[in-house]
């Protein structure tokens, strides 16, 4: 017995059933392949493992590794789980699996070529025509398209599980937009760090070579053999379940992450709308499903693809990986015919066994399936989503009848499969090793005339002991797949992308306009969050000085400040009221709503939510520090949501705002140091400064355009300067009693003070001049004209003029009010003109005839 006490403790209650376990023999001996790892785990012991698991959890959360779940009650971005115990497999065994996978992907490539080419398999009776023609992934629009790449199937993923005989079986083929490579890479990078001492000693094979080849694959796929083809990663967007991975791969490989509306087809080519203009695209790594790729020829209602794209593919002016139409290979109807196909194309036997499958398109098989419905898992040949998988044994009588009817009506659409015989693998849970069902995803990419298999992969295990389902959507956890050898590998150990193209899309000119827009709004929302937070904090600090709420509205100063809250957040009627609606009287309720009601437009919580969204959409530009601060902000808001708010004292709300302000500032600091100017920081600054400018104007309008009694006026001025974070500067600069002239001089007209409006406007002017898209050097662009006018208005006035009172209305500072109104319009127009010039998404894509058919 090799186990020492530590591992004995770890596995006290390990065996529940008599399943095949990866690590242990039925009498609890460690299998030879796992000996090396087990020894290392023994040395570490339960406590150390628990602490390292914590490190992993922390790192994943730090790096913002997430997995979105559609309609998840817990919200988007569920954290990704990685268990500390890797799944290890001996190089020798992996070699066999790899050979089998190579043969399989080679066959699938031939099948794909045949389906969209000569269709010999059907003509020669090897494959029934319904398996192809009845599959909704068979896109007739893609028929007979010729490709320049040697292999039509460039990327392939396969779900594998170990059968009761100890052999590894193929369960599913993924070809349309295979996911998981990015997660596998992230898992390795995390586990590799936390277990570096273990990994080194058990000789874990590196992934770097594979990803290097992957990059080469993309470069060589370019229809024109040029040194630096333009490559992009096409994502459906932040709501997609694997968006993290799209962003991760894009930033790892150094290619722009774009969405369908960043692209356009013109003159037979595919172009990316960048800040500078249109940029020709040669290669698309697609993560959008086939049917959504071209609303002209495929799904009409899709906004994820590009109209006219298929014709660019036909003209061989762009390469899409994998090609549109490859979804037909994700086809469980192919499985029963794979042995015959292997004979037909290669005169070989299948090297990897596959899950037993009966295709109901054959009379005999259909009868058998209908008579044995209880024993099997029934699914459509073209769908493998959870909703369309039926476990025969769990169906009610009615469900069973319905299913039988469906099978009888369109038998060719259904297969029955044996329930997967999962092997179990140890999972570290609550200080113990626990057996969990596992599935592993392996990856292949085309390389020259052959395929290359990733020496690793993504292992997913069930969320609970004995659970049948293994899926990340169901909240399972993942493991690093380690191929281990007896000796260190010969390959170089560093993760270098050797022949990386010199061109990387990091220049401002190449910035996808969508990213530019998100950066711009990120700037605006962060500016708004911060300014609103500060104003609210200042107002609350004044409120707490009043002992009872009833007195608040009688206090002129507080009244003005509260009205200011409504004006700055634009949450009318609020404390101001409108023509139709009176102002509110319950101060506490209104303030709570303006601060915490996420659903109220303009509220702080709402602004913070917009802030979250705009940042999440550009997460490929983030550093991990940014993610940490971002998460802390999110957490603190989540903790205060709901019933908690009513019990908070004003002082606790002030404390909460204090923290929020500090974190936003930390976040802003990180943005400025982690994103390059060329990556669009300029747009962020433009947004930020425009927002600062707009809100400074709106604060002045709320607080300073009307003169009040001296003592109130003084307090208002003080409050204004506090909310503007300028009281100290004021004291330093003027060393005197606060006057309206000096306050306006400092906050509006000063040319050297960073928070003064003149300074901000001149900064915007300088930044805008650096944007591409200059048509005429001697002429200002539309947006520049507005900002120039704003600047000159500020330069042409004086503090004396601004403080003058109106002759008819002796408490009204008319000049100031007019200037502020004009400036507000000009800044608004600037923003509008920037959007029109650079964020060219205002053009809505529509169908000529409004119709939408599900493909």
């Amino acid at each position: 017995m090799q186990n020492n006490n530590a591992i004995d403790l770890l596995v006290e209650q390990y065996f529940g059933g008599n399943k095949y376990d990866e690590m242990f023999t039925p009498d609890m001996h460690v299998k030879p392949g796992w000996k090396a790892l087990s020894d290392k785990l023994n040395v570490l012991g339960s406590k150390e493992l628990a602490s390292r698991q914590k490190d992993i959890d922390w790192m994943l959360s730090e790096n913002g590794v997430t997995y979105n779940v559609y309609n998840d009650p817990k919200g988007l971005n569920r954290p990704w789980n990685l268990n500390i115990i890797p799944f290890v497999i001996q190089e020798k065994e992996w070699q066999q699996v790899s050979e089998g996978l190579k043969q399989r992907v080679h066959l699938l490539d031939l099948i794909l070529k045949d389906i969209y080419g000569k269709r010999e398999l059907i003509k020669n009776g090897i494959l029934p025509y319904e398996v192809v023609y009845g599959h909704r992934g068979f896109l007739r629009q893609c028929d007979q398209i010729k490709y320049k790449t040697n292999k039509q199937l460039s990327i392939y993923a396969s779900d594998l599980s170990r059968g009761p005989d100890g052999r590894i079986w193929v369960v599913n083929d993924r070809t349309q937009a295979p996911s998981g490579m990015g997660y596998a890479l992230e898992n390795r990078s995390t586990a590799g760090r936390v277990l570096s001492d273990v990994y080194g000693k058990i000789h874990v094979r590196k992934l770097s070579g594979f990803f290097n080849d992957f990059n080469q694959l993309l470069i060589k796929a370019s229809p024109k053999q040029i040194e630096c083809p333009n490559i992009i990663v096409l994502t459906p967007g932040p709501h997609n379940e694997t968006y993290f991975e799209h962003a991760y791969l894009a930033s790892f490989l150094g290619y722009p992450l774009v969405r369908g509306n960043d692209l356009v087809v013109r003159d037979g080519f595919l172009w990316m709308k960048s800040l500078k203009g249109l940029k020709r695209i040669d290669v698309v790594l697609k993560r959008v499903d086939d049917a959504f790729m071209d609303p002209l020829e495929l799904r009409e209602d899709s906004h994820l693809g590009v109209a006219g794209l298929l014709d660019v593919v036909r003209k061989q002016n762009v390469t899409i990986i994998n090609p549109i139409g490859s979804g037909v290979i994700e086809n469980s109807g192919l499985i029963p015919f794979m042995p015959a196909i292997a004979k037909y194309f290669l005169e070989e036997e299948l090297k990897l066994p596959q899950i037993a499958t009966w295709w109901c398109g054959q009379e005999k098989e259909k009868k058998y399936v209908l008579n044995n419905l209880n024993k099997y898992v029934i699914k459509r040949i073209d769908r493998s989503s959870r909703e369309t998988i039926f476990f025969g044994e769990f169906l009610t009588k009615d469900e069973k009848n319905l299913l039988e009817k469906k099978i009888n009506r369109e038998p060719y659409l259904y297969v029955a499969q044996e329930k997967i015989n999962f092997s179990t693998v140890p999972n570290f849970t609550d200080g113990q090793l626990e057996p969990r069902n596992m599935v592993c995803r392996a990856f292949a990419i085309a390389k020259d005339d052959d395929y290359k298999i990733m020496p690793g992969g993504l292992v997913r295990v069930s969320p609970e002991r004995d659970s049948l389902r293994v899926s990340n959507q169901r909240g399972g956890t993942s493991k690093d797949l380690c191929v281990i050898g007896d000796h260190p590998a010969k390959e170089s150990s560093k993760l270098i992308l050797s022949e990386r193209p010199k061109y990387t899309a990091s220049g401002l000119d190449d910035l996808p306009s969508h990213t530019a827009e998100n950066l711009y709004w990120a700037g605006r929302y962060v500016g708004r969050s911060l300014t609103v937070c500060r104003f609210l904090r200042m107002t609350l600090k004044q409120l707490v000085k009043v002992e009872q709420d009833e007195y608040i509205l009688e206090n002129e100063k507080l009244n003005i400040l509260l009205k200011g809250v409504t004006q700055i957040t634009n949450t009318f009627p609020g404390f101001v009221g409108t023509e139709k609606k009176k102002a509110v009287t319950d101060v506490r309720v209104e303030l709570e709503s303006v601060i915490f009601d996420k659903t109220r437009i303009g509220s702080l919580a709402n602004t913070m939510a917009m802030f979250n969204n705009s940042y999440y959409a550009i997460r490929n530009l983030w550093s991990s520090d940014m993610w940490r601060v971002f998460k802390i902000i999110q957490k603190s808001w989540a903790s205060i949501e709901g019933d908690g708010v009513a019990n908070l004292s004003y002082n606790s709300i002030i404390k909460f705002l204090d923290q929020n302000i500090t974190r936003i500032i930390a976040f802003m600091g990180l943005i400025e140091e982690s994103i390059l100017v060329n990556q669009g920081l300029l747009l962020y600054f433009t947004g930020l400064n425009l927002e600062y400018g707009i809100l400074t104007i709106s604060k002045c309008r709320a607080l300073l355009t009307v003169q009040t009694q001296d003592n109130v006026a003084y307090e208002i001025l003080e409050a204004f300067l506090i909310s503007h974070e300028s009281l100290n500067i004021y004291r330093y600069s003027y060393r005197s009693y606060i006057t309206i002239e000096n306050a306006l001089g400092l906050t509006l007209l000063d040319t050297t003070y960073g928070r003064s409006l003149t300074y901000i406007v001149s900064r915007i002017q300088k930044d805008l001049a650096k944007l591409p898209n200059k048509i005429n050097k001697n002429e200002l662009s539309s947006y520049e004209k507005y900002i120039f006018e704003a600047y000159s208005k500020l330069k042409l006035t004086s503090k004396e003029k601004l403080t003058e009172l109106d002759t008819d209305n002796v408490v009204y500072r008319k000049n100031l009010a007019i200037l502020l109104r004009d400036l507000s319009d000009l800044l608004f127009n600037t923003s509008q003109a920037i959007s029109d010039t650079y964020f060219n998404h205002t053009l809505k894509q529509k169908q000529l005839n409004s119709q939408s058919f599900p493909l």
Partner: protein
Amino acid sequence: MVFSIIHTTRYRYNAPISFCHNIATIRPRVCTGQEIQSFDLQISPQTLDLSERLDFFGNNITRFSIQQQHQELKVTSKSIIIRQYASVKASFFTDQCKKITVSEALFSLKSNDNDILEAKQFILESILIRNTSDKIKQYAEVSFLPNRSVFEATYELMQRIYTDFDFVSGFTTVSTPLSEVMEEKKGVCQDFAQIAIACIRSIGLPARYISGYIETLPPPGKQKLIGADASHAWFAIFIPGFGWVDFDPTNNQIPEDQHIVVGWGRDYYDVPPLKGVVFGSGSSKLKVSVDIRPASEAQKLNIIL
């Protein structure tokens, strides 16, 4: 018979469209009993980005884009078509066609011969004809008895659809589900063709959708108005051992010279005359006109290519 056909589709927008991508299935295909003497396509605004190809079903597809700002899109096709359908039609009434029974047909379809294989794809469900209800099947089974001639069964089905369904334009759109048409028994030529196709497929026989035009004749003594004709749709059934046979349930007849074929597919989705993606805001108004008349008459009237 030689026909002159002018087919104009015009979209007017209330706000400028910055560009658009379009696909037209509008050039008539050559098929049994039909030859194309000439074809001309005019698009306004003019465009250089235009290409033609054959689609999966052998139809002529024209793809074009307009990359300049415009507020009106006008697509006009002018064709001279020679129709000699009488002998084709006569062949349907021969014993060779009529003798094949439903059960014989179903048996023959098990073969993997090339033409049978080619036809069999039209048995499967398609984009617009899928998940058909039991009602469809029951409706079909009244006519399609195992020992009955396929031709006669189909003829009867056509007659029943003609009698049971009311021609009501505007009641359905291209995306009205078939079950609703079946329930309400109302629709236009597309709907009737697709109901018939669904019925035939529910029996297990291949049926396809045919898109084209039909020449209408003015009431006796009246002059025919220009542009008074219409796009039309009907269906064809595949009878193994004989071939495809066309039926027009809207007019309760086997097509004549007046039925001009543009293309065919599994259902309307495969052969829409004009579709596209436009970029811009605002809404559009559509106007379609079709004029069909004997080429000699067209020449006289100076409705000329």
